[in-house]
């Protein structure tokens, strides 16, 4: 009888292990990731807390300050325009399609959002479907109140609500832990899964932080593929309904590197430009100077059209793109 109980218990434990492994997916060390250790976030606030980087700021103030100026710091809110585009993607996209299964925001699941959030908020994959609904409702509530506040700046409730929700949306971003932990390893079966207690950079050793006490070298931290995870090959064919946003990484591979280009994204956008974690692009004067050789030659010529003189100026413009991808991208 006792052995039967043990067998039953063992069987139950095996079943639980099997179901846990199924939920986590394949791969050794996957159970050590931030998402696996903490469990899926059940609210936007839990997701913000799960990837909280406030402890990084004390020791890395310059990097934080630079990052705070970057689009990464407001990857779904942007200037408000990005957030509005998320709403368009929702309304004109999966809420309007016959086979998406979405009729109202309550039907939205994480996978519906991943067309945008694969890159704008990759950690959303570490949240439950309830968070997908909350994100949709938050965006809509922000937008309605932002419009109301713009129309009537004296509408205190609209101003307060839109400001508060804009802060929430801005708190959902591509921060230290996305590049230096969650997305720091692309080849996880080769190099292992990013672990919950480790920051990934250029060195192995200790890291002076209670929660992230280890530092480990990421083999792709200075490689273009780190950025390429989000900056686009073309259609995201892994999705049930492919989306396409940036195509810079595709251009980098098939135009720049195919033509012998040797620099990485980090070489130009961080090191040579001196921009560090600002990582800005077309709006930055330094990047503008680095991106294009631009020459103009102009002269006058008096062309004889039959017996009629047609004086004209001829302007020859010559441009060479020195960036590692097409300009503009999109």
């Amino acid at each position, binding site marked *: 009888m006792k052995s039967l109980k043990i067998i039953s218990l063992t069987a139950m434990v095996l079943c639980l292990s099997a179901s846990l492994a199924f939920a986590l997916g394949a791969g050794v060390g996957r159970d050590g990731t931030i998402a696996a250790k903490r469990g899926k976030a059940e609210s936007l606030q839990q997701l913000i807390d799960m990837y909280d980087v406030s402890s990084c700021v004390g020791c890395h103030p310059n990097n934080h300050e630079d990052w705070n100026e970057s689009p990464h710091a407001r990857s779904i809110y942007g200037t408000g325009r990005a957030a509005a585009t998320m709403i368009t993607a929702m309304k004109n996209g999966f809420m309007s399609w016959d086979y998406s299964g979405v009729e109202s925001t309550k039907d939205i699941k994480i996978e519906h959002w991943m067309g945008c959030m694969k890159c704008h908020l990759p950690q959303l994959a570490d949240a439950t479907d309830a968070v997908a609904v909350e994100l949709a409702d938050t965006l809509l509530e922000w937008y309605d109140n932002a419009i109301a506040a713009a129309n009537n700046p004296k509408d205190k409730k609209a101003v307060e609500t839109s400001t508060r929700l804009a802060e929430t949306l801005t708190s959902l971003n591509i921060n230290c832990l996305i590049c230096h932990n969650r997305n720091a390893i692309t080849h996880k079966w080769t190099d292992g899964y990013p672990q919950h207690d480790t920051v990934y950079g250029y060195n192995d050793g200790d890291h002076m932080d209670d929660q992230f006490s280890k530092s480990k070298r990421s083999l792709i931290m200075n490689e273009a593929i780190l950025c390429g995870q989000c900056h686009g090959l073309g259609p995201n064919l892994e999705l049930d309904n492919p989306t396409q946003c940036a195509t810079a990484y595709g251009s980098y591979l098939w135009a720049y590197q195919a033509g012998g280009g040797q620099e990485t994204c980090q070489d130009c956008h961080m090191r040579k430009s001196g921009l560090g974690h600002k990582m800005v692009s077309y709006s930055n004067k330094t990047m503008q100077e680095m991106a294009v050789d631009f020459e103009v030659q102009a002269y006058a010529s008096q062309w004889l059209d039959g017996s009629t*003189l047609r004086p004209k100026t001829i302007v020859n413009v010559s441009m060479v793109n020195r960036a590692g991808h097409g300009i503009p991208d999109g």
Partner: protein
Amino acid sequence: MPTPALMARGNNMGRGPYEKSGILEDTALHPGHKVQERFEIFFPVDDVDTPDGKTAQVAEERSMDVTVQLWYKPFGNMSSAELWREWEQTISLDDKGKPTTYYSGNKE
């Protein structure tokens, strides 16, 4: 810039990322490739009576200010557009103008 294909079918452009798949054409500057653009800007001319009793077309304005600007337009229009380069020069018909057998307005 890339003209994205609408849902990867036909020749319609898709604008929102949720409907873009593929590229119909791409007018971007591509890495390492030289792109040259040539513009011809004609001087305005007036009909004038010539000493031999004929009529000729002559540019009364003998110079023009040429400005070439390179703009980065993230949304394809002037919204959030960035001026990357600006080149200005005054081009004169008379810099290398010589008397001709045709009445041209060139200085003698």
